[in-house]
């Protein structure tokens, strides 16, 4: 059980800015996963995270996809990822 709320993009109670940032993250990554819903508690941080990820790791990266994934997944493997 997460320690903070996971804001749902389809919930009318989700604040407008959080919903907007969630939909931006969805467009950038192709699907919404819970890290975005958790980060949506701090919409500005979610926006900054989405921009960074899109710039260095996803669509805007200078790397070939497999190289980006190797950098990302090796770190996750070393950290024995908690997700």
């Amino acid at each position, binding site marked *: 059980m997460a320690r903070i709320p996971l804001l749902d993009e389809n919930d009318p109670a989700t604040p407008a800015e959080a919903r907007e940032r969630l939909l931006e993250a969805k467009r950038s990554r192709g699907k919404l996963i819970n890290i975005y819903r958790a980060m949506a508690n701090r919409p500005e941080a979610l926006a900054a995270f989405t921009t960074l990820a899109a710039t260095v790791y996803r669509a805007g990266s200078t790397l070939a996809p497999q190289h980006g994934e190797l950098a990302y997944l090796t770190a996750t493997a070393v950290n024995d990822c*908690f997700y």
Partner: protein
Amino acid sequence: MQHLLAEPLPDGVYEPAETAIIAYARKSTRLEPIDDVTYGALAAHFSTQQIIDICMTVGLSNMVNRFHATFRTDVDAETLAEVAAGDLAAGTCPLPRPKAPG
């Protein structure tokens, strides 16, 4: 995924450029010094801009791992379903989740 921690890496699985990324990502994540050999291997295959993207992607992954460890984010049903269906690429973390502390 299972090879990424192997020491040494298995022969014939990774290209030299990929080996350079793995060696760097390990050291950076473990906060070990990035010695000239490790950096030199990256520089032999990648531009400065690409090395910056590699560096910041490793950092991004570490940030995400810390975020999950801090807030214990539940794995969403969609991802669990995809992993259960055998799509390991969908699983953001196909490694077994460790026992919760305490």
